[in-house]
């Protein structure tokens, strides 16, 4: 159940939603209108819950599950949103030299039919997983809802790994958000000054070492490594951190040139 609390003195709404895309979503938005703030929060909840269903590969009835089951057998016609998302995934696959791959295998084997807006998997092993993309995509949607409501100051935290900062902290020039060392939570690896951009972080934690797969080798990367990226584009930062977790140094240099506007740091712990 969504939680919300409006802090009248600060004109601030805090919204929180648990069990969404496998994590928790928190939003602080500054708006001098309590009822509008609550409406915006409800709109965001509805949108994020919609995306949760859309990208949920654990729910056999989700749109993604249907694609994963049927695209191996025959081309599946997509709605506009899925067509956009799969094309976007293809672009990112190309721009990261194959290190970002929602098929976790070889996205080149995912055929996109531009005429019919259909998808077909040439390879039976393929199953799409948007774990490294969906939260960035959701942040873009949230950003749109916030801006359309005239909100210019907000902080959105999607499970700590994807943070969107709109405008500045009400008493600062920006939102200063630090990345905590997952192995030593008291230690801050770096503090980023965010204003109208997003911070994405990928990495292994002490309890979670097998969740980022190298699509070129098919193996998990168990390194004690954290990658953070800041970009005005919420999916750019999201995709880049996932790719840089598995890319080697040479590949990382090449990827860097393709994303000149995205700043990133690789922390080896």
């Amino acid at each position, binding site marked *: 159940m*969504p939680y919300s609390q409006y802090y009248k*003195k600060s004109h601030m709404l805090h919204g929180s939603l648990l069990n969404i895309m*496998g*994590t928790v979503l928190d939003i602080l938005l500054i708006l001098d209108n309590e009822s509008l703030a609550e409406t915006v929060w409800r709109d965001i909840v509805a949108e994020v819950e919609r995306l949760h269903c859309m990208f949920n590969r654990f729910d056999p009835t989700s749109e993604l599950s249907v694609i994963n089951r049927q695209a191996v057998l025959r081309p599946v016609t997509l709605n506009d949103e899925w067509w956009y998302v799969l094309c976007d995934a293809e672009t990112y696959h190309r721009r990261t030299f194959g290190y970002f791959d929602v098929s976790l295998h070889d996205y080149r084997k995912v055929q996109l039919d531009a005429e019919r807006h259909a998808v077909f998997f040439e390879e039976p092993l393929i199953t799409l997983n948007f774990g490294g993309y969906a939260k960035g995509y959701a942040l873009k949607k949230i950003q749109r809802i916030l801006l359309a409501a005239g909100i210019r100051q907000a902080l959105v*935290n999607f499970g700590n*790994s994807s943070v969107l900062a709109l405008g500045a902290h009400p008493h600062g020039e920006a939102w*200063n958000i630090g*990345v905590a060392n997952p192995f030593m939570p008291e230690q*801050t690896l770096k503090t980023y000054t965010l204003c109208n951009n997003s911070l994405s972080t990928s990495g292994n*934690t002490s309890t979670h070492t097998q969740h980022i797969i190298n699509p070129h080798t098919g193996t998990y990367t168990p390194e004690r490594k954290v990658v953070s990226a800041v970009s005005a584009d919420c999916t750019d930062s999201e995709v880049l951190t996932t790719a840089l977790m598995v890319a080697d140094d040479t590949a990382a240099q090449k990827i860097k040139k393709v994303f000149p506007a995205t700043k990133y740091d690789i922390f080896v712990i």
Partner: protein
Amino acid sequence: MERRNFIKEIGMMGGSGLLVSAFPWLHSCTLEAEKEIKGEKARLGVIGTGSRGMYHLNHLLTLPHVEVVALCDNYEPHLKQAAALFPNAKTFSRHTDLLSMPGIDGVFVVTPLSEHAHITIDALKAGKHTFCEKSMATTTEDCLAMYNTYKETGKVLYIGQQRLFDPKYLKAIEMIHSGIIGDITGIRCYWFRNNDWRRPVEHPSLERKINWRLYKEFSGGLMTELATHQLQVGNWVLKMIPETVAGFGDIIFWKDSREVYDNVCLVYRYANGINMTYESVISNKFNGLEEQILGHKGTMELEKGKYYFEEVKPAAGILQLINQIEHRMFDNVSFAGPSWVPETAQKYQGEYVLNKISQTEGSSTVGVVDDGSLELADAFCHSVITGRPAENLVEEAYYSSVLALLGLQAMEEQRIIKFPDEYKIPYLNFA
């Protein structure tokens, strides 16, 4: 805690101006107030040098603006232990003698409960600013007489409700009032211990003198010694005084010729229908000590300094940001990192209201470190120098003392007691 640290800790609440407007009795804890007493000293007498008296004396020893000039106790061994701590202080066995000693600005009354009222009234009438331990008295008449004397003399009176000075309480109550746990729907207070509440007695003739807490002539037992602290918290949270009380009490385990209940269970009912339950059992300590404030969005545990949301667990960093923005502050917050997933989260343990929380499991029968008692003593000494009473403090203490006694009456008479009009003083809903 040093005043600077105390202010810094609760200064998270947006500076001393806001702090004092929310908690007016903290006026003398501000840094501005510290300047006004620079170089001055409060000359104090301490009446009652038993375990709690020694606890205060050890605090007074650390305060720079205090000089303990007189000590009084009618039990020689206790007086001696205090005199060892303050060898230059004059010693007395009768409080009236101490009160007539020239050069005393203020006194601490740390005697058995039954002695509080007449000594405090004597002290105020003798022109001394007075700190009296809680509860105020053994009867509602005496509580009112103390309050009236305080008002008539215009002297400073403090009652030892240290939670009013405990940073974690101040912070948590401010958060409750800002709405973080939603509408308050219930209050549960309890204090569970497993011990006989006795002190060693050298000779049977001293039994009632040393173990005065166990005898009705001197004490209201669990209600006046423990419940007063916690009932005060309920009123503080709700900004209201309950109108009725009912309950049961008995001696069920410590059948050792004591007269006060070792087991009490009561309900205090507020005008808006909210119930505050109070339980204390001293033959089982499993539940410990707590004041739980139940809201429709969350729960605050004041003694632990922790709160829990009903449905969701916002990231800690978000709560830090809310706190900053609410107090017009700006700082870095470190919460970004690899995705938070439920499997990596431990069982929901709640959030702390302050970074540093000092806790007690409630078994001490004297007092614990960092529970606001030092700040309370410090603030009193400050008021002794300035002569300025602490706003609302006596009122808070008066109602908690009277409510404890009304609870006792309800249990003894086995009936529902309505708050008597003649004992209402102008404060909150009884104004």
